[in-house]
């Protein structure tokens, strides 16, 4: 079967599955939208609807403290018919978002940046999956489907992150900057992806044109471009809502964690237990912890920028304040790009077992805690620990594999030998 036909079939069936779920189970979207694993205070569709209601009734959408998402989502969704009565348009929109994300993922796979970069060529470069397979892994991942059905706005963030990666690996500066600014505008933390993706873009451009541009000038131009794009978006938002209050209600909420609704991350439990006087300090510590990986990894893995970006999305899925399975699905769909590292990974069983364990027991324990009343918060928190453990095993193990792979290229004579830390 030719590639295009395969792709069409894949995309068609993925769209069919989604639309079928939307139409055959009309209560499913709302039920999923209420799940804490899928919808967080900063991505929930229900909260978006509340903001939308206020917006269309000429009240500031941030009055009432429910809506914490970017203002530009409001005009987008206010153009669609009311999802309470005509859910189809919204369903189609979210299906499209997923398909576009898959398309971007396929483009990343096709670019081959995951195995062969300008400075580095993996010794196992032939070991890779086709772009269709990788896109299929994304589209039929149950977490992706759940995110899509729950209409969580993190689907949009994921789309822009994947697009930014795709554009960076294709060397398309302008759209890269635009996509990344959208992603950062929506979710803030994707801004941390800028340095590794800039390196990726630089490598892609350098290998395309054969004459490397000046790194300094290159980074300055793109940084300024990104800043300009983000500022423009913020400015338009301020014009749209009539004030700058949205900054505190969106990014302020992400930074300061006022809403301690449980989620799959590690912050909520910690900060419910935290002594009030140390709260600000540990907010700082936790955010710095998330941010501190970026420079170190970018420097250490300078030759494999796409891998750095992928690892960072994994770190976001674990350590950001409001993670959901949507963040995990982004990471888990990017990992298959590095099929060549799989033989070097040591704990695949442990990682996959704990992810599966957490995904089945998590909802059960949440039910025990909240609805049955026979468990307490520790039950659910223990499961989120297992979930984060599973993800961090994958992150750590793949990092090890990537470094080992680099070593194999540097010193082919050591290949296959046991490494020992000294």
């Amino acid at each position, binding site marked *: 079967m030719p590639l295009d036909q395969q792709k069409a079939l894949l995309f068609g069936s993925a769209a069919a599955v989604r639309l079928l779920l939307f139409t055959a189970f009309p209560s499913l979207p709302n039920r999923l939208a209420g799940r804490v694993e899928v919808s967080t205070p900063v991505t929930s569709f229900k909260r978006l609807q509340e903001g939308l209601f206020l*917006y*269309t009734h*000429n*009240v500031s959408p941030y009055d009432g403290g429910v809506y914490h998402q970017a203002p530009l989502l409001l005009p987008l969704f*206010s153009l669609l018919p009311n999802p309470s009565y005509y859910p189809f348009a919204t369903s189609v929109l979210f299906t499209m978002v997923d398909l576009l994300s898959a398309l971007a993922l396929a483009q990343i796979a096709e670019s081959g940046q995951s195995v062969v970069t300008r400075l580095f060529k993996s010794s196992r470069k032939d070991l890779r999956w086709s772009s269709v397979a990788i896109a299929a892994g994304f589209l039929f991942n149950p977490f992706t489907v759940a995110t899509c059905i729950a209409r969580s706005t993190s689907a949009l963030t994921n789309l822009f992150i994947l697009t930014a990666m795709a554009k960076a690996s294709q060397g*398309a500066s*302008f759209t890269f900057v635009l996509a990344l600014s959208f992603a950062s505008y929506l979710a803030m933390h994707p801004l941390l992806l800028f340095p590794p993706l800039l390196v990726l873009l630089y490598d892609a451009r350098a290998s395309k044109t054969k004459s490397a541009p000046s790194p300094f000038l290159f980074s300055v131009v793109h940084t300024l471009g990104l800043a300009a794009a983000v500022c423009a978006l913020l400015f338009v938002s301020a014009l749209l809502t*009539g*004030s700058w209050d949205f900054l505190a209600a969106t990014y302020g909420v992400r930074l300061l964690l006022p809403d301690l609704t449980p989620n799959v991350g590690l912050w909520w439990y910690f900060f419910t237990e935290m002594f009030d006087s140390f709260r600000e300090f540990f907010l700082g510590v936790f955010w710095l912890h998330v941010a501190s990986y970026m420079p170190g990894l970018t420097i250490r893995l300078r030759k494999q920028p796409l891998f750095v970006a992928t690892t960072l999305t994994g770190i976001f899925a674990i350590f950001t304040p409001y993670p959901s399975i949507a963040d995990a699905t982004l990471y888990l769909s990017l990992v298959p790009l590095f099929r060549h590292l799989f033989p070097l990974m040591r704990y695949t069983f442990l990682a996959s077992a704990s992810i599966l364990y957490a995904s089945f027991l998590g909802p059960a324990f949440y039910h025990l805690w909240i609805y049955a009343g026979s468990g307490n918060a520790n039950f659910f928190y223990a499961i989120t620990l297992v979930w984060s453990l599973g993800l961090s095993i994958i992150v750590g193990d793949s990092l090890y594999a990537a470094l080992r792979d680099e070593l194999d290229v540097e010193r082919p004579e050591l290949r296959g030998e046991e490494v020992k830390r000294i």
Partner: protein
Amino acid sequence: MKFSSAILPLLLAPFAAGEHTSNWAVLVSTSRFWFNYRHLANVLSLYRTVKRLGIPDSQIILMLPDDMACNPRNAFPGTVYNNADRALDLYGDNIEVDYRGYEVTVENFIRLMTDRVAEDMPRSKRLMTDERSNILVYMTGHGGNEFLKFQDAEEISAYDLADAFSQMWEKKRYHEILFMIDTCQANTMYSKFYSPNILATGSSEIDQSSYSHHADNDVGVAVIDRYTYYNLEFLETQVRDPTSKLTMGDLFDSYDEEKIHSHPGIRYDLFEGGEAVARSRLVMDFFGNVQNVEVDKGGVGNEAQWREELEAIERMIVEAKRRHNVTLNVQPQTQHVVEEGKPAQARQSLKKEGAMRVDEESGWSKQIVGAATLLGCAGLWFAGSWFESH
């Protein structure tokens, strides 16, 4: 003659020091959950007693972290008893709980004592005392060496309490305080106090537990603590009405270690005048609301003269107003004009003040603006990608 006028101020001094004009009570239970029924019963018993002795609800701050009366495990819904004979329903129908449930926190307690409360805090939830107020502070819950747990989540330390009292003293927020605490190792809680005029008593020494008095088998849990039980016994049987002349010394002498099963402590040293003065204070000085009533002179005053006076006052005021108006006209008040101008330049934003009806916007202008923005973004995107692909 000389001698007597010299000694009079001396005689007056203790009288003046003993004077207070209002009584307040802060009654705090710090534990929640059904098996701590007795702590809430303790507090409600004391609440009932001080109310009986005349402290009005507006001067009682009652902090109850849980609602035992409506607890699903309560076999007698809507009631709280402090005795197995269940003769007296403490809950009754006239309970004013000021702080309830999760409002009962260390922070709120300290805010209450120091009156650092939000501006919109109702007066009934504030301790509005002054230098002429006697305060009864009663606390019960689970505690330990120099701390008292609040709701199993946090604890107040003896230092916090001492600091709160010292702030109150600095701001002249009390005349005298009776601090009473029924918890394990209770006497450690008042050991750090350093502000004057506090008489403190607790149920048990360091490393000593305080015990419950008895359980009601139908309620299923202990209903009252020993120390509180015997305090109440004294207050209910000896202090029959607000005119009682019993002293704090009588109350303290009634403590029987055999019955209480722990060593109640009493701290006199902070009190001005020490033990003797503290013991001579009336029970009603803290548990009741003794007010000195001033009866007007018998017979109605000269009413005709009063009516005349009123008319004259009215004339006087009319005259004063006229003069005032004249002066107003003389100097036009420029300030007013400036202030009136301000509200007009309120921010033009979506934020609206006050209650108002909102309706869905009927026009399309908002949609058009939104669509234009989105189209702008999309256009930029496609222009960019077209540019890149060529």
